[in-house]
């Protein structure tokens, strides 16, 4: 098994783990964290695409690599947005929960997915 | 000459790896946070220094070597101060520590 395949499988497992955390953790901050895990897993899979496209004397295809860089920045923007929404929710309601029984905070952290 | 330098690299890198081992043993065996912090930062910084020293003959002179050394100095600097900050936090949370 070569390095690219290995990291690809790692990325697939990370994406699954992140998704699991996103679904099962009820705490919004943990959801954001899991969303970032999901993101790195996906990026790693994309990195494998880049590595397999190695040609023209390069270690990897630069186009997917550039897209992953863009993706990391966008994931950061989404994370920042979600965190600020969560903090505002906390300031307004005194609670940081997405449970509609506890507070009416419809779908705050889901905005990032 | 080549052989001598290779032996130097091997010895220095092996020495560096040994200090990483020492740091980890300290981390695993020491009883409380402050002593673990002590083991971690001192041994590992020395390990990194030896690894850097060992790699010097293998990189481009002089800029590559300069960058290698600056990485080590950087870790020294930031590591020393960051560890101080962390240790003070421990002291503040638990004055008995």
């Amino acid at each position: 098994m070569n390095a690219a395949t290995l990291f690809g499988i790692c990325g697939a497992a990370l994406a699954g783990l992140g998704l699991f955390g996103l679904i099962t953790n009820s705490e919004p901050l943990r959801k954001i964290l899991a969303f970032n895990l999901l993101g790195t897993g996906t990026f790693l899979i994309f990195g494998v695409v880049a590595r397999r496209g190695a040609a023209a004397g390069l270690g990897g295809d630069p186009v997917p690599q550039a897209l992953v860089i863009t993706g990391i920045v966008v994931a950061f923007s989404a994370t920042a947005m979600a965190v600020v929404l969560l903090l505002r929710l906390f300031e307004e309601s005194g609670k940081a929960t997405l449970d509609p029984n506890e507070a009416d905070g419809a779908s705050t952290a889901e905005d990032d997915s | 000459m080549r052989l001598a330098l290779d032996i130097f690299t091997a010895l220095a890198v092996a020495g560096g790896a040994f200090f990483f081992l020492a740091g980890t043993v300290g981390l695993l065996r020491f009883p409380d946070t402050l002593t673990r912090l002590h083991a971690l930062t001192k041994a590992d910084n020395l390990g990194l220094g030896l690894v850097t020293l060992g790699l010097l003959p293998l990189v481009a002179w002089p800029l590559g070597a300069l960058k290698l050394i600056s990485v080590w100095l950087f870790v020294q600097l930031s590591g020393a101060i960051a560890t101080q900050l962390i240790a003070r936090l421990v002291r503040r949370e638990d004055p008995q520590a």
Partner: protein
Amino acid sequence: MVSFLLAAAIFILAMVALGLFRVFCGPTDVDRMMAVQLLGTGGSAVLLLLAVAVEIPAIVDVALMLALLAAFAAVTFVTSASGSPAAAEDATDSR
């Protein structure tokens, strides 16, 4: 030489991994924060060894970044854990 350097990198990575598990089990968040310090030094060593082994000098820059951001993470940790920067300085006099 290349396999020797890679073997050293694996060894250091294993040491970092062992340390990480001790640190993550640690009773307080401070213990966990040591993991970042551990990766700052250990990760830099691994990256330097890799840079020479696979002959991509630019990897040294990643080590530089790691060293810089380990300190950054420690600073944000200390200030957010203690509430305010002034509080972080309180312990200075107690020696």
